[in-house]
């Protein structure tokens, strides 16, 4: 064969995305010129996507351990003990570039990949959530991307029978050329049933299970994930894989059976860089060698070359280490599920990753050195010039006071970033598996754990605009908000998985954003006691040199000892008292109001007081646990007024479906028609240097604020529990209008039906 002699040269290395230094380093490791297959393997394993070469030195800043953490970063997923012998495996991963090239398949395979990370460890995937970012919906291409991405997530997740219970979607011009698709998944596992991706046992078989290998996704990790986009976007389509959720569904059932029956020594999924990354990771972690016979891999296309087989990213494939004694049982399980099951190699004591092709050795790489000696790069960071130190001055003439505050509210509710995302989540099966306690649309997704009182909750958050204006403060706020969302639902936040989406890390300003964001996340995770257990870094999110807003997406897990306490954001009964918890300062800077009403993004976002935040959340959780509250809702985009409107709008929803006729008889107590609110802002407008601006009290944004409603007879107990925490009794739940006053003077009254129409107007923008 020609492959053994087909040595590569520097030109080939550069074509594969390696640098001259990296090529020289490879020669030193190999002690000769590498073969072409070897070079292809190095190029992928040392790509940004697989090696984290720009981020590794910084990520060490994260807190990653704690009494509940059974598995931190470094495995396919992080694992957290949630009680009664149960644990949760969780992870988020980006599929930004594939989705920008081919939205449906890009997003679908993003879901497929993250789900494999979960069941590879032995956990049954029980929930998916997706964080999406696009350019403005006024652009037809952005509507096409949104439609394709949501459709792809729905197609794959629904077919697998894994509920997709929410997520978040935001639209900003900075994502126009580079949308973000961050897929998060979590699964339930018994604490004694965890499997890790470590090869062991010299002589054991290396078994490939699942789909045949084709030319799809060749070089996805290096070509797509580790470069910026330019005019060659369309040419990159062949690098996007095509998903087959039916095969993945069978793979889930077969692999979980193999793991539960202890028929495999270890297991690893084939994700980015396919067989190359899975085999090199398994061997390097296990301090063993692997001999892989590439010619034994079942192929879709007969004429594939060994390097193509090794780097193909064909989906729905798993690699397992199996003993000779258990091979027959493994084959039986795979046959029952109509899955290919092929012995393609064996574990050796050589500590070398060796690839064979019809009896000849085409690659012979020291596995540890391939993993350990991948380059580390620290770009000298540069503080971007656009940053400012102070908040904007609202009374300098750039922010004229609005005449009609009610109209400003409906305009905000209709803004795509705030409007209901029902259009998207109604395409997701959010109820399969019979564990869903809280469906999408409230602050958190809530699930029960069958046969226990326990429950788990998930949220994901990141305000990219805030992170752009101040990556440190914005990232801190993202962690705080994710936790606040869980606390509003009554769940104790316990762990984080993060997806750090940034521009090109070779640029000093981007690297600075990254460092700042990691510091902010780390501080907030320490203060809120939520270690980072897994995650993903996605760099090179740029097109034509324009970087996205720094978008460190935070996915968070919360737990319940007793899930029956869970709470949502809907007002429940007329006469209930509305209390605003936390400081009421509302900032113009970085707010949705600033963008929608004034068309600008400027200033400096407020810093989160983490001590106050922790106290606020602990008090809210205590109030939920004591069943003092009727509803709780985080104040986020759109400020206090939008939060109140959302509580009112949700009051007319029954488990997700708005009654066609809001005046119809209620089928659930307190629901079935919209409740409104009568709220006074007090003297709260004297904030953020904007005395007498009721619009800022209504729409200004700030961290650490929660709106709750409480039955009048429980108000005293609540206030006693709150103690010294800043709070204010602001009004009452009423009939069908939202009315806001300031020190008694009316600001606006809007029927909730009108607010609802604005809030549910997203489909009209997509038509």
């Amino acid at each position, binding site marked *: 064969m020609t492959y053994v002699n087909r040595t590569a040269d520097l030109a080939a290395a550069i074509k594969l995305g390696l640098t001259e230094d990296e090529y020289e380093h490879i020669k030193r490791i190999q002690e000769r010129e590498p073969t072409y297959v070897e070079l292809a393997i190095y190029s992928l394993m040392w790509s940004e996507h697989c090696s984290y070469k720009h981020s590794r030195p910084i990520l060490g800043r994260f807190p990653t351990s704690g009494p509940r953490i059974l598995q931190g970063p470094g495995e396919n997923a992080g694992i957290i003990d949630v009680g009664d012998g149960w644990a949760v495996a969780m992870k988020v991963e980006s599929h930004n570039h594939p989705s920008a090239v081919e939205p449906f398949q890009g997003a679908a395979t993003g879901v497929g990949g993250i789900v494999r990370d979960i069941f590879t460890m032995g956990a049954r995937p029980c929930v998916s959530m997706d964080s999406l970012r696009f350019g403005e919906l006024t652009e037809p291409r952005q509507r096409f991307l949104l439609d394709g991405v949501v459709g792809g997530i729905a197609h794959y997740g629904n077919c697998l029978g894994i509920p997709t219970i929410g997520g978040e979607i935001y639209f900003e011009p900075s994502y126009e050329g580079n949308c973000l698709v961050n897929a998060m998944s979590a699964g339930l596992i018994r604490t004694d049933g965890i499997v890790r991706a470590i090869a062991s046992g010299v002589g054991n078989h290396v078994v490939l299970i699942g789909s045949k290998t084709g030319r799809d996704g060749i070089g996805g990790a290096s070509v797509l994930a580790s470069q910026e986009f330019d005019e060659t976007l369309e040419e990159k389509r062949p690098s996007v894989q095509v998903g087959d*959720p039916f095969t993945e569904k069978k793979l889930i059932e077969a692999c979980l059976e193999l793991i539960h029956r202890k028929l495999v020594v270890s297991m690893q999924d084939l994700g980015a860089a396919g067989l190359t990354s899975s085999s090199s990771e398994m061997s390097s972690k296990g301090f063993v060698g692997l001999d892989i016979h590439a010619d034994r891999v079942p192929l879709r296309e007969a004429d594939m070359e060994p390097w193509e087989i090794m780097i193909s990213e064909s989906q729905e494939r798993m690699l397992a280490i199996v003993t000779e004694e258990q091979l027959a049982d493994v084959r039986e399980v795979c046959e029952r599920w109509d899955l290919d099951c092929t012995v393609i190699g064996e574990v050796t004591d050589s500590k070398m990753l060796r690839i064979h092709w019809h009896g000849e050795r085409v690659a012979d790489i020291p596995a540890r050195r391939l993993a350990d000696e991948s380059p580390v790069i620290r770009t000298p960071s540069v503080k971007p010039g656009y940053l400012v130190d102070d908040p904007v001055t609202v009374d300098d003439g750039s922010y004229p006071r609005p005449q009609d505050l009610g109209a400003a509210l409906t305009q905000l509710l209709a803004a795509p970033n705030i409007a209901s995302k029902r259009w998207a989540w109604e395409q997701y099966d959010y109820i399969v598996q019979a564990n869903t306690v809280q469906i999408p649309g409230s602050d958190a997704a809530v699930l029960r754990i069958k046969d226990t009182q326990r429950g788990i909750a998930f949220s994901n958050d990141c305000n990219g605009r805030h992170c752009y204006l101040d990556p440190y403060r914005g990232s801190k706020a993202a962690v705080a908000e994710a936790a606040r969302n869980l606390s509003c639902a009554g769940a104790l936040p316990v762990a984080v998985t993060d997806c750090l989406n940034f521009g090109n890390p070779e640029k000093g300003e981007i690297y600075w954003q990254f460092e700042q964001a990691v510091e902010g996340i780390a501080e907030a995770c320490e203060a809120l006691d939520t270690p980072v257990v897994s995650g993903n870094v996605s760099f090179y999110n740029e097109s034509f040199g324009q970087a996205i807003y720094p978008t460190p997406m935070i996915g968070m897990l919360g737990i319940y000892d007793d899930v029956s306490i869970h709470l949502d954001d809907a007002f429940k009964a007329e006469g209930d008292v509305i209390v605003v918890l936390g400081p009421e300062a509302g900032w113009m800077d970085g707010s949705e109001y600033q963008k929608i009403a004034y068309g600008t993004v400027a200033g400096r976002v407020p810093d989160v007081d983490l001590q106050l935040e922790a106290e606020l959340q602990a008090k809210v959780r205590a109030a939920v646990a004591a069943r003092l509250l009727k509803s709780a809702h985080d104040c986020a985009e759109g400020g206090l007024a939008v939060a109140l409107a959302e509580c009112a709008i949700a009051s007319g929803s029954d488990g997700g479906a708005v009654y066609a006729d809001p005046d119809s008889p209620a089928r659930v107590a307190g629901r079935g028609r919209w409740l409104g609110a009568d709220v006074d802002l007090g003297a709260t407008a004297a904030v953020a240097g904007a005395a007498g601006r009721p619009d800022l009290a209504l729409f200004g944004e700030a961290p650490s604020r929660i709106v709750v409603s409480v039955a009048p007879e429980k108000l005293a107990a609540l206030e006693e529990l709150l103690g010294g925490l800043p709070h204010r009794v602001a009004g009452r739940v009423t009939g069908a209008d939202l009315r806001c006053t300031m020190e008694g003077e009316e600001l606006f009254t809007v029927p909730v039906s009108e607010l609802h129409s604005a809030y549910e107007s997203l489909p009209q923008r997509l038509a």
Partner: protein
Amino acid sequence: MSSGPVRFGVVVFPGSNCDADSHHAISTFPGTDVRYLWHKDTDLQGVQAVILPGGFSYGDYLRCGAIARFSPIMQSVIDFADDGGLVMGICNGFQTLVEAGLLPGGLIRNTGLKFVCRYVNLRVETTETPFTGACEQGELLRIVVKHNEGNYTVDPDTLARMKAGDQIVLRYVNAAGERADGANPNGALDDIAGVCNEARNVFGMMPHPENSVEADLAGGADGRKLFQSIIDTVLRAAEVTA
């Protein structure tokens, strides 16, 4: 028939994904015994009612349920149904029953051209079936639909016969119990959500009652009456035989 637990079988195709939910739902009823029936098998293990669950049977890259109807287990289910056995198809199970010719009509793409997961109000149009006997005539059930191909269609002559034969079992209505714009999630002809065969022992519905059996979950408990009806029917038959 012997007394003892009411024996249910839930068919498992490789792409079924509501099989476990159906199994779980039935197991919340005391006095039931529920087992899985693997698609490659032909033995129905003496069950008294068969559930064809939701999901994507064999991936459904072709028409939904088009391959499932040829599976070994389906040949047994068809024989079972022909002998008067109780068969309930939910969502993909409904699609499979239609493909197998056990129920009239067909299920095509939703008019919205998208998968839709949503609470709907169902009106019980007849209690004269083994699947709705525990309901009140005209009762409303609030249950989730989740499908891409739930748009029921049938030729006018058959529809007329079905109406005359009281085979329309469930319709989509609004919260006031009236047929109305916006109440039908998929464009189904005549707002049809569930139908039975002429012999009334085979029933298919698009919504998912198995996700509506526990009041403390988001799905509520309105689906219980449908499973209760099956249990009542089997127990009554056992009494008659005894």
